[in-house]
């Protein structure tokens, strides 16, 4: 008990004695871990949205209504429907009338008045919404039906989603790269701080070694000093994410009501991704900084 109280007390004293250095270490660990945590959350968000979308992905077969091509006849429409239903690639077929399309549109874009004003009940085409057995077969389906009379356009939602996912993944890699650079800076800063602390208390460690204190007893306070700063950085980074991310997601949810966003509990659950790397990096960096330096 007494040993640990000594070790923690020494580490705490060191942090206070070197207050501004400690602040610099904590801030730099905070920035890198917050970025890292953000990229972890972004990845979880992408996975969550993708899981949700994969089940709902549809291929829309828009039908001609005289605006761009001659309107589809009832016979053509019935035949198209029968063929689609018989197609082995197709799981399910729904018909969305012009009225239904308009109603859905109004529901999605309820708060965007200018868009609603430019779209009338007649603007949007009717369509067949097709769920595929395998969403990757969209191109094959399109090739089969694109040239059919009465078919205006076939849109694969997966392409739209993929564009979005590509963008999200670029953002994520950028965040990871900056986090890595910042983490490197934090590592060097921790190592330097720990060394400065060890030099400042050289008289004490010299006595400890001569009276026969074990290597770890001499070193642990300094290593702990770096590690505590790392833990503090992780906690601050977690607090930053816990406050800002739910707020950001709330704002996004308003404009993207159909996207499933991470829940608050899921955001808070990012803490192991902050604490584990935070502790690992600062403890390794402190240990390496003292390598051979405080040897008996």
């Amino acid at each position, binding site marked *: 008990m007494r*040993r640990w109280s000594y070790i923690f007390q020494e580490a705490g004293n060191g942090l206070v004695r070197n207050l501004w250095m400690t602040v610099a270490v904590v801030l730099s660990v905070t920035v890198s871990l917050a970025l890292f945590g953000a990229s972890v959350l972004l990845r979880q968000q992408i996975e969550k949205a993708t899981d949700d979308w994969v089940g709902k992905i549809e291929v829309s077969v828009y039908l001609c209504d005289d605006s761009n091509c001659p309107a589809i006849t009832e016979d053509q429409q019935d035949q198209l429907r029968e063929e689609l239903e018989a197609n082995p690639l197709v799981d399910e077929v729904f018909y969305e009338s012009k009225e239904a399309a308009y109603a859905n549109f109004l529901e999605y874009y309820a708060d965007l008045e200018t868009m609603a004003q430019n779209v009338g009940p007649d603007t949007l085409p009717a369509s067949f919404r097709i769920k595929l057995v395998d969403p990757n077969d969209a191109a094959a389906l399109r090739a089969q039906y694109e040239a059919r009379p009465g078919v205006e356009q076939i849109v694969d939602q997966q392409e739209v989603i993929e564009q979005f996912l590509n963008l999200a993944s670029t953002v994520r890699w950028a965040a990871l790269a900056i986090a890595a650079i910042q983490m490197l800076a934090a590592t060097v800063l921790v190592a330097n701080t720990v060394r400065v602390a060890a030099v400042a208390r050289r008289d*004490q460690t010299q*006595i400890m*070694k001569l*009276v*026969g*204190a*074990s290597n770890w007893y*001499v070193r642990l306070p300094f290593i702990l000093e770096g590690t505590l700063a790392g833990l503090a950085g992780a906690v601050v980074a977690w607090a930053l994410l816990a406050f800002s991310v739910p707020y950001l997601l709330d704002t996004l949810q308003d404009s993207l009501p159909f996207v499933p966003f991470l829940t608050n509990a899921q955001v808070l659950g990012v803490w192991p991704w902050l604490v584990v790397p935070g502790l690992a990096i600062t403890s390794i960096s402190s240990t390496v900084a003292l390598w051979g330096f405080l040897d*008996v």
Partner: protein
Amino acid sequence: MISFEHVTKTYKTGRSDEVVALKDVTIEVDRGEFVFVVGPSGSGKSTFMKLLTREIRPDRGDIHVAGKDLNTLRSWKLPALRRDIGYVFQDFKLLTNKSVYENVAFALEVIGMPASVIDARVPEVLELVDLTAKADAKPHELSGGQQQRVSIARAFVNQPPILLCDEPTGNLDPQTSIGIMKLLDRINRTNTTVVMATHDQHIVDSMRKRVIELSHGVVVRDQARGVYGYAN
């Protein structure tokens, strides 16, 4: 307790230049002996002391201290060696932010002694060095002689079988030095081996203990109940 057998230590001072600090030194010190190690600066006294605590290692020869072969001693066992040796410095090396009591207790705390042992041993050793009244004083409030007695208390509080003193009176006036020597003599009578490196002729002459004289890394004299002598 301490044995050197044909120990040689050289320092490299340049690419091909070497200084021989100790040359084929063989010394035997028994338990409970009091030994002065004398000789001018550069004679090898410091090297001798550093070899004993294995701060440095010899080029050749065997060193045994407190039953341990220092050539084969694993580095993780060094703390055990250091616990068998109390070390007293010329410049005291007290921690300025700690009181007399805390400085002495520190030596036991950092080797993981339980509080009950610390609470018993520290007042005892402060009594021995006659500093009970100054237990709460900080080092800067003490005279040089008092500070050296704190340093001795710290070295001896763990009751090591060996006490190494590196010029312990080097910073003290003759009157104060006599007090320190009386203290070391008292410790020696508890069957503690005392090895003291010194320049102080008066002290060596007045104590009449064993004297080992080094010159250019060689033992030129090893005399029971000796005197300082080399200046003459």
